[in-house]
């Protein structure tokens, strides 16, 4: 099998991810923060060390600023629903995933004003358009770090620079596609809320994710859920301190143990090395696609430095779902056709409602796999021309 669906979830995972999960389930087992016995303390250490590694990866000085959630969607919902009130204004881009768009559409029906800044047909955002969209009621700017449809990286650092002049406006970045794949520095990028998922380029299992909150901002966010935290048990009010405020109920400790190992793998390999390899794969595929000329339409920017390791394209005359089906059945190539939970992004690049074929590469893919996929596409085009 050739797995080119890493933007949905990464596969395979490092062996250490599986080992850490098995170790937790067979040798630790207990619930973190729920007792003083050694197994519970050990579980708490695993969770804390996972916070430490995530904090290190994103240049966050205090690991207690990391909250664990079940995925990036829950993290984004916590910030959006917990912060924005009727009358507030929020700025976002036209390249957002539904994890941002749907909560914002929900909020707009409840009196929150939403401005969607248009990106170019390649998915490029001009930071000046963000500044122009800011008004007196603006409370938050919410942007994806890179589009899951085109792979185009948004100018987060430049927008962070713009927002420096507006200290009252929070900056939420959706790093679902970039965490572990490109460098993220919450200080250099002036990010107030960083939402990440654990099961993509951080190599954890599905069911893990979280967010960073800059100090001071947690007071402005109501938690999505309230419940047991293992702390302040004599109180019937949710604690206000980090990270317990946002972590009601038993954590996914087995998942977080896997995530810890995954992030450790990323730190050990190094973002630079991971990025370089994924860029080589992406550029190899792009140049192969370009050789098909008018037979293939490529969406998004073409330079490897401006995008993450995914390519959206269409073969003229063939529907994305047909292409994906043939690639699976005849070549055992796994990819994702359609709208990728991001209708606004597809409207922006002109591929709505049919969608595109998306190949998303990962650190474990090889150049041989890229070449085989290009062969497969070549044969699909031939088949089309023969009318078969």
């Amino acid at each position, binding site marked *: 099998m050739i797995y080119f669906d890493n933007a949905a979830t990464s596969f395979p995972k490092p062996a250490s991810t599986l080992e850490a999960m098995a170790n937790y389930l067979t040798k630790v087992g207990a619930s*973190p*923060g*729920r*007792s*003083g*016995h050694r197994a*519970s*303390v050990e579980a*708490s*250490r695993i*969770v*804390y060390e996972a*916070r430490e590694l995530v904090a290190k990866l994103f240049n966050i000085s*205090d*690991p*207690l600023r990391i909250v664990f959630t079940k995925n990036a969607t829950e993290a984004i919902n916590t910030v959006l629903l917990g912060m924005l009130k009727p009358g507030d204004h929020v700025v976002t881009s036209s390249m957002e995933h539904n994890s941002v768009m749907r909560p914002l559409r929900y909020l707009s029906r409840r009196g929150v004003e939403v401005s969607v800044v248009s990106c170019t047909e390649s998915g490029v955002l001009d930071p000046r358009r963000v500044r122009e969209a800011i008004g007196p009621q603006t409370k938050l700017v919410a942007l994806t770090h890179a589009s899951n449809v085109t792979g185009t990286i948004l100018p987060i650092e430049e927008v962070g620079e713009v927002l420096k002049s507006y200290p009252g406006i929070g900056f939420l970045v959706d790093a679902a596609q970039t965490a572990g794949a490109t460098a993220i520095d919450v200080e250099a990028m002036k990010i107030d809320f960083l939402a990440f998922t654990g099961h993509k380029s951080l190599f954890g299992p599905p069911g893990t994710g979280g967010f960073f909150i800059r100090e001071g901002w947690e007071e402005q966010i109501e938690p999505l859920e309230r419940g047991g*935290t*293992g*702390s*302040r*048990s*004599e109180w019937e009010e949710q*604690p206000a*301190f980090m*990270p*317990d405020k946002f972590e009601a109920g038993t954590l996914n400790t087995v998942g977080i143990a896997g995530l810890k190992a995954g992030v450790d793998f990323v730190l050990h390999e190094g973002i630079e090395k991971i990025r370089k390899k994924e860029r080589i794969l992406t550029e190899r595929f792009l140049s192969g696609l370009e050789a098909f000329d008018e037979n293939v339409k490529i969406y998004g920017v073409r330079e490897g430095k401006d995008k993450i390791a995914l390519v959206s394209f269409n073969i003229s005359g063939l529907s994305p779902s047909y292409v994906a089906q043939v690639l699976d059945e005849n070549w055992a190539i796994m990819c994702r056709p359609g709208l990728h939970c991001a209708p606004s992004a597809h409207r922006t690049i002109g591929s709505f409602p049919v969608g595109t074929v998306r190949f998303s590469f990962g650190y474990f893919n090889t150049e041989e796999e890229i070449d085989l996929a290009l062969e497969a596409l070549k044969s699909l085009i031939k088949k089309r021309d023969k009318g078969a």
Partner: protein
Amino acid sequence: MAGYCVVLFESISHAVKAEKIVQKAHIACKLIPVPRHLSSDCGICLRIPAEKRVEIDELLRQSLKGYVIAEL
């Protein structure tokens, strides 16, 4: 118990963080269940040598809030 103090925290996450800070300073410490006669916000506390109390307080104050040091 002579010779020991305990540090009480708001949350287990804070206790684990404190343990790492104290260990890094090469001071012996141990996470233990909170003794019955002390009330606390979370189930465990950090047992430290009494003579290191001031030093540890200095260390923790830089990166933790809401903890209390009590005699055992």
